[in-house]
Every structure is written in structure tokens, then in C-alpha cells.
């Protein structure tokens, strides 16, 4: 019954706000009206715009390089390097039709989707068991899973390489699909534990009295209420998979099996000075799917990022 305080949370609030904040609970408006406009220019807008420009500039540069014609790329004096008047899609064309890029993109997508689905299933079950079944030792297991979150891939890739080799998974996408969940499960379990805790306990009690099994409760009551959490976990896991590098670099060998980050670093870097255009086009094309996903789910992203830390 320790969950009683949380059970007062409005169901609607749980469903519709992914990042509940308590700041405005007391209806106070803050004191920004006390500061004059010139003062805000110097203390707020100026530093903020400098930081934002620095944070965004590499992407601008990436995009600009990707559409610049070759001769403008390396001649900084004859043409204005910060802009181009005759953009070309030659680099993208080369990327899509004269390299394995579409295949790498497909590999990355395939691995990311499979690993994410596997991890979400495993973490939903684990998080529900830890939060609601509260079996003997649940807290200990929860703590251990948090510790697993803190084990970085950099100290695991060497032994994992030998394990992957033993299991005969070397150089196959399965190697990544099975190893990525070790990064994703701890994270998404903690995130989902936080969401499950906010679901009123009484709902489950009613269902139990009506004769529902635990499985039915999970599928028909808990999961529909935890959809924002599931979306957060899903897109965050997907991003982590897409971003993963060291396992993909170690476990995959043949060019056609590689994921985008590894392939770009290994296959595109051959010392040709005119490679910059297609290199940047490749980097841009590899980032776009994530940025588009992000644009649609900003709030879920933020709640995923902050949720796992807050817990």
C-alpha cells in the first residue's frame, strides 16, 4: 500500500502529459517582468544565440558541404565558403546509386528495429514484475538492472567478441540484434518502472477481483495506460541503436553487413580530397531519419532522457 499517494494522480494527466512538472502548481508567474528588455538582450538572448549557433553550426556545415559542387568545396577564396548559389545533388546521387549506402541504411534500420522490439518486450515484463508483482528480491533486481545500465560497451566489446564468435554469430546482424538489448533493457526497464508506478493500483485490484490474470492485466490495463512511456522508450532505444558504434565495428566484417556509422567511417575514408562531399552527404542522410523521428516526438524524447535520470 505504499503506492497510495501516487494513486491520486489524475489518469488524464498520466495519459496526456509526458513530462509532468510541478513548477506552476502554485500559479505564480515568475518574475521575468522585472527585467528590462536591454538587460535581457545582454544576459539572455546574446549568450543563448551564441551557444545555439555553435551547437547547430556543424549541421549547417554538413548540409552545405553535401550540396556544394566539388570545385567550390576546396576553393575557399574564390567562392564564399558559407553559402552556395548552385547546389548539386551529385553527392547524394553517388551515395544512393553508386555505393552500398541504401543497404547500410537498411541494415541499420533492421538491426535497430529488431533490437528495440526485443528489448521493449523484455523490459515491459521485467518492469511490471519489479513494480507490481513485487516478488521476493524485486528491489535487489531493480538495483542490479540499474547497475547494468552503468556498464559501458567499451569494457564489454572484447569478451563479447569472443562470445559472439563462439555462438557462431560473427559478421551477422544477429550479433548486433542480440547484444544491443544489453544496452537498451536496463535503460528502458527503469524508464517503464517509473511509468508503471504512476498507474493507480486500484485499477489492477478491480481487475483481479473480476478474475483477470496478471497477463490480462498487463495487456489490457497497464500497457494502454503506459503508451507515452512505451513511445518514449521505443524512440530512445531506437536512437541508441542507431548511434551504437563499437559493437558494430567489432562484430561486423563484410562491407554489405555494416551499419551506417561504421560503414561511413571505414568505407568512405580513403584519402581522396574530393570525398568530403559524399562523406558529408552520407553523414547527413544517416542523421536525417533520427532527426525526423525526433521532430515528431520531442516531448517523448525529453521525458525519456530526463525520466531515466530522475528515477
Amino acid at each position, binding site marked *: 500500500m505504499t503506492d497510495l499517494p501516487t494513486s491520486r494522480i489524475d489518469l488524464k494527466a498520466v495519459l496526456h502529459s509526458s513530462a509532468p512538472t510541478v513548477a506552476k502548481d502554485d500559479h505564480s508567474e515568475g518574475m521575468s517582468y522585472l527585467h528590462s528588455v536591454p538587460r535581457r538582450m545582454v544576459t539572455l538572448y546574446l549568450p543563448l544565440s551564441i551557444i545555439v549557433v555553435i551547437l547547430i553550426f556543424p549541421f549547417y556545415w554538413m548540409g552545405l558541404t553535401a550540396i556544394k559542387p566539388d570545385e567550390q568545396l576546396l576553393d*575557399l577564396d574564390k567562392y564564399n565558403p558559407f553559402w552556395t548559389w548552385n547546389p548539386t545533388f551529385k553527392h547524394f546521387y553517388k551515395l544512393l546509386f553508386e555505393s552500398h549506402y541504401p543497404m547500410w541504411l537498411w541494415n541499420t534500420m533492421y538491426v535497430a528495429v529488431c533490437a528495440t522490439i526485443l528489448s521493449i518486450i523484455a523490459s515491459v515484463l521485467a518492469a511490471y514484475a519489479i513494480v507490481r508483482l513485487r516478488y521476493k528480491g524485486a528491489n535487489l533486481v531493480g538495483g542490479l538492472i540499474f547497475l547494468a545500465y552503468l556498464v559501458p560497451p567499451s569494457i564489454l566489446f572484447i569478451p563479447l567478441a569472443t562470445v559472439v564468435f563462439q555462438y557462431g554469430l560473427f559478421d551477422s546482424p544477429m550479433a548486433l540484434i542480440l547484444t544491443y538489448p544489453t544496452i537498451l533493457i536496463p535503460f528502458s526497464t527503469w524508464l517503464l518502472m517509473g511509468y508503471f508506478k504512476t498507474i493507480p493500483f486500484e485499477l489492477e485490484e478491480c481487475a483481479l477481483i473480476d478474475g483477470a490474470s496478471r497477463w490480462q492485466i498487463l495487456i489490457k490495463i497497464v500497457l494502454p495506460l503506459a503508451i507515452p512511456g512505451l513511445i518514449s522508450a521505443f524512440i530512445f532505444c531506437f536512437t541508441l541503436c542507431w548511434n551504437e558504434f563499437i559493437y558494430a565495428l567489432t562484430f561486423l566484417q563484410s562491407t554489405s553487413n555494416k551499419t551506417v556509422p561504421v560503414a561511413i567511417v571505414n568505407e568512405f575514408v580513403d584519402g581522396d580530397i574530393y570525398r568530403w562531399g559524399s562523406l558529408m552527404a552520407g553523414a547527413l542522410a544517416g542523421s536525417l531519419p533520427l532527426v525526423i523521428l525526433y521532430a515528431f516526438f520531442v516531448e517523448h524524447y525529453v521525458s525519456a532522457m530526463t525520466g531515466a535520470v530522475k528515477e
Partner: protein
Amino acid sequence: MADIAIAPRRAKTEIREASAWDQLKHNRNWLGFWFMVPALVFLIFFLAYPLGLGIWLSFTDTRIGRVGAFVGTENYEWLWDDAIFWLSVFNTLLYTFVASAIKFGIGLYLALLLNENMPFKAMLRALVLIPFIVPTVLSALAFWWIFDSQFSIISWSLKQMGLITENINFLGDTTWARICVIFANIWRGVPFVAITLLAGLQTVSPSLYEAATLDGATRWQMFRHITYPLLTPIIAVVMTFSVLFTFTDFQLIWAMTRGGPVNATHLMATLSYQRAIIAGQLGEGAAIASAMIPFLLAAIMVSWFGLQRRKWQQGESND
């Protein structure tokens, strides 16, 4: 008589005995176990076992394609006398401390800025997070191009402004290379720190600041005595994560410098990759990777105490 004698006994046994199958289906502990199985299988086979195996490998002379024999602490003794290993330890510590400290400073500042009321607030927040979304390797490539020795846009701009006459050899000079990778790491890490701290800031009630203003507090006093104390727990956790991931960083370095020039940017993770996978000395690489564990444990202890303190501040232990 016989019926009467048997009937109650049967009734009793029917109530009493839940079959083993029922036990497995309804007992809370067994049910919990079944729910945990998928996650545990992954974590045991691909996390706990390799973690142990890694430590074991560091005591063997395993190479790629050859099962090794136990050699005791030979790998560690070898590393003890290896100047490159110590250089990588130095680099890792330098990289971690400098990058984390600056990330914290700029991240907190950015969080405070973003917490103000202003137009296009939501859009600005979304923009700020983009470096965190884009795969590290791909943005590292953009930095590689920005820091190019001949066609760097930074060198060009500085030359146009008349500040320098020669191109700066960003990734070819040891000091510059270190500055560049640290800069790229800070660039990648600031959004994470800023957005998580911002989430913490939003839980601070504005009425506290109003009360402090009425009492005549300056902006610095408000930060020092309201914002900072309330933010401490989340700062502890965020910085632990930040330190942990900076310390074990691999991809940024690998994409930008691969440890060069003359090992000036080799971190422990990149060195272990080079020794284990490229040179094939799995045992030695595992020893370098295992040498990171004490540092990680220290960071985790900090995180743990941070979390404890958080519960203490909340006044109750919510489960």
C-alpha cells in the same frame, strides 16, 4: 458410513492442494520469475557473463583465433611498464575532467537561460537537443571536416580576420588535437546536461524566487541558496552519467583521430580496441579495459550517494 468417512476428506484435499502447475501460475514469486526471464537471459548471457569473461581474459594470453593460457598478472605487469598505456590513462583523465567540468558549467548556464520566459522557447529547446540526437560518429565526421588541416573553415575565418597567417594544423598537432576532441565531446554532451538540468529547474517553484526577491536577495544569492541546493541531487546523477560516458568514450576519438597524432588522443577504450582487435592481443586489450573498472566503480559510488541524498531530501523513501 464409508461415504461419510471419505467425502469430507476429499473436500479437504481439493481445497488444500494446489498443483505444482498452479503454483507456477499464481505464486507471486514464480510469476515474477517468469516475467523476468527474457530480460535476465539477455543480461546474463550478454552482459554478466562477458563482464566476468573479460576479467578472466585479462589474465590470459589469448589472441584472436587462439585460446589462451592463464598467465597470471603478466598482462598488467607488461602494461605497468608501457609508456603508451600510461599516456592513454593520462589522456583519459584529462579528457574526462576537462570535458566534464566545462560540460557542467555550460550545461548549467544553458539550462538557466532556457528556463527564462521568452518567445520560441519550445523550438529553442528542441534545437538545443539536436547534437544529442544525431549519431556521434556522424557529427564527429563533420568536426573532422571542420578541423581539416588545409580546408578548415575555422582557419580560413581566422585568416580573413587577420588573426593568424598560417593554417592551424588542428588534428595534426598534439595540443590542438586534444583541444579539438575535447571541444567535440563538450559540444556533444552539453545538450544532455542542459536538458536534464532544465527538467530539474522546472520543478523549482517560482514562488521561492519571489520570496527571495522580497527579502532583497541578489541573483547570485538566489542561485547559490535556492537553485543550487534544490538541483544538487539531479546534478550528482547527471554528472555521474556524463563522467562515465566521457571516460569510456570511443566513437568520437575513433572517428576523428584514431588515437593520433603520436597517441596524443588515445583513450583507454581506443587503446584497448587497437591492441585487442587490430593487433589481435585479446588478453592485453582486456587488461586495458579491465583497468577502467576501478574508475567506473568510483563514479558509480558517487551516483549511489547522490541518489541516497535525493531520497533523504524528499523526506521519505518512496519504495
